[in-house]
């Protein structure tokens, strides 16, 4: 298995000085291509901090981050933007859609920044929306959709430009059971299509469906196991 992401001795310290919080404390971790990883841990343990680092949304205080063997931590802001655009699909707990844009326009955004032409963009974006079951909601704005539908738009946006890595930070945290099931099914399908999926969750039912489970506690990795209950099915 090829190494996809590799972090070495990463620390993240908020408010350095008196009130400092060590959100990540000398964490090292390697994830290979095509893995399906769940990250669990108590609230405040540093899961989101780790995920933001992996998604190039934040930079570590110390330590190194390699993506495809490339050192990301020393890249310029615009190079990191490019990495986020090409390599990473991020799914947030709060959806993070742009309220004034329709579902289709939201999904098209990463393609615009990638420089994809209008026709191709339309095709890719509507295909992505269809694949999450929103063929009939393309022209709706976020406030005209349910939470589950909004999260599906966000997933469509994350996968439209077909990035190899999908990062999901509590993607079902704001959703009811039915929507949660739908979203997890979609994420598992994306994994089966060949993407590397890393998902943060509080839900043991979701974690138990991942292939590898990493537990974080107080900014450190407490355990990192292959899930014995994993079943290779959608």
């Amino acid at each position, binding site marked *: 298995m090829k190494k996809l992401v590799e972090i070495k001795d990463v620390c993240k310290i908020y408010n350095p000085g008196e009130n400092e919080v060590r959100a990540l404390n000398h964490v090292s971790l390697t994830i290979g291509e095509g893995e399906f990883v769940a990250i669990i841990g108590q609230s405040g343990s540093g899961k989101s901090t780790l995920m933001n680092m992996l998604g190039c949304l*934040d930079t570590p205080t110390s330590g190194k981050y390699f993506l495809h063997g490339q050192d990301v931590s020393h890249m310029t802001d615009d190079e990191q933007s490019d990495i986020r655009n090409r390599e990473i699909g991020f799914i*947030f707990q709060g959806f*993070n859609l742009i309220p*004034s844009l329709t579902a289709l326009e939201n999904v098209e955004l990463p393609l*615009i920044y990638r*420089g994809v032409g209008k026709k191709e963009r339309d095709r890719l974006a509507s295909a992505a929306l269809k694949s999450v079951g929103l063929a009939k909601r393309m022209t709706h704005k976020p406030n005209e959709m349910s939470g589950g539908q909004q999260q599906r738009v966000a997933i469509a*946006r994350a996968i439209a430009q077909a990035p190899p890595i999908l990062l999901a930070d509590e993607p079902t945290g704001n959703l009811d059971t039915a929507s949660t099931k739908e979203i997890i099914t979609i994420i598992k399908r994306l994994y089966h299509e060949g993407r590397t999926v890393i998902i943060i969750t509080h839900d043991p039912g979701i974690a138990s469906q991942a292939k590898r489970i990493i537990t974080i506690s107080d900014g450190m990795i407490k355990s990192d196991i292959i899930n014995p209950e994993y079943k290779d099915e959608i």
Partner: protein
Amino acid sequence: MGKITEYLKSAIKQIIGNGYRTIMTMLGIVIGIAAVIAVVSLGNGMSAYVKNSLNDLAGNYGIISINTAKTAERFTRDDMEKIEEVLPNIKGVSPNLSAYGNVKGRKKTVSTSINGGSPALEYSYSNGIVKGSYFTQQQVDSGSRVCVMLLDDAKELFGTEDAIGFDVDITVWGKTSTYTIVGLRDHMNDMYQFLMAGQDYSAQIEVPYTALGADYDIGTENFEQLVLFDEQDTLAESVERAKDVVANAHNLRGSSALTAQSMADFSDQLDQILGYASKFLILVSVISLIVGGIGVMNIMLVSVTERTREIGIRKSIGASTGAIMTQFLAEAAILTFLGGIVGIILGILAAYVICSAIGFDVIITPTSVVGAAVFSVMIGLFFGIYPARKAATMKPIDALRL
């Protein structure tokens, strides 16, 4: 290139998609520009109005005076004839005798100022004769006791404006004479009413100088002042030439005993006063521009702060700082440009409405329009881009957290 078109489209989408914010942002720019255009136009209109009314009020005349301390020479009737001979195109020359007293009509007695002159005195005010006619040279030569006053004076003295042929008793220095009204002048303009407001009523009567001199013991052969009436554009020159004529006649060439003054000198003074007024107006419009600019700045700052999250989202899915800056630059440019156009149109409309309502001429100066528009657009662009730049260079996670 294709990307830039997309960022432009994004900008337009945001402008249309956020109608309320768009309107509020544009409002700041519109009000700033419109206010400046309207204020400057109002100021110019007022300035022009004051100037015109004062010119009207005063008529167009020049005065040639003899300094009694420097020479024993005095102006004579011959001098008037000579001047009119040499300058046949002027409206006329008149001596300038005046007296103060009371005038008694059938209804009332009021105080009055009396001017004695030749028929040319008719041009001393711009409000012409509307009833009867001015006294004639013949009446001057024969010393007829006839007079001209304002319609307002007739109304005051007789309770009617139909007062031609009525007699008034004019008392000056204890001597009373009876004069017959032969002509009535139109009402004075608003500026006169304004200047006279609050003062006791005083009638303004014009009589042949011969009659005035005979009745109240004022010399009518020698004068210290002559008044010359002419069109505004030739006045200054005519006054100078008339001065030469009398200087020759009295051997006063090059002497400082003769002085001449025309309305043109008065106009210069007026220009100076109005100059201060327009400096004040420039100050007012600069202040309104700054206030408008602060408004635009606030709205831009608030709207970009509101949108920091949007910037975070865009960055998190791969927008470069340049892409975000292009979008915000385009948004600010479109908003300020549209706001500028609407502001200019509204400002000009407001100027028309306000100035016409007050009765001023509508004067719109291109400098105020261009200046206000450029200033507001610069402010709008700067404060549209500067905070966007700050947000765009943040780490995406920090922008998302806001």
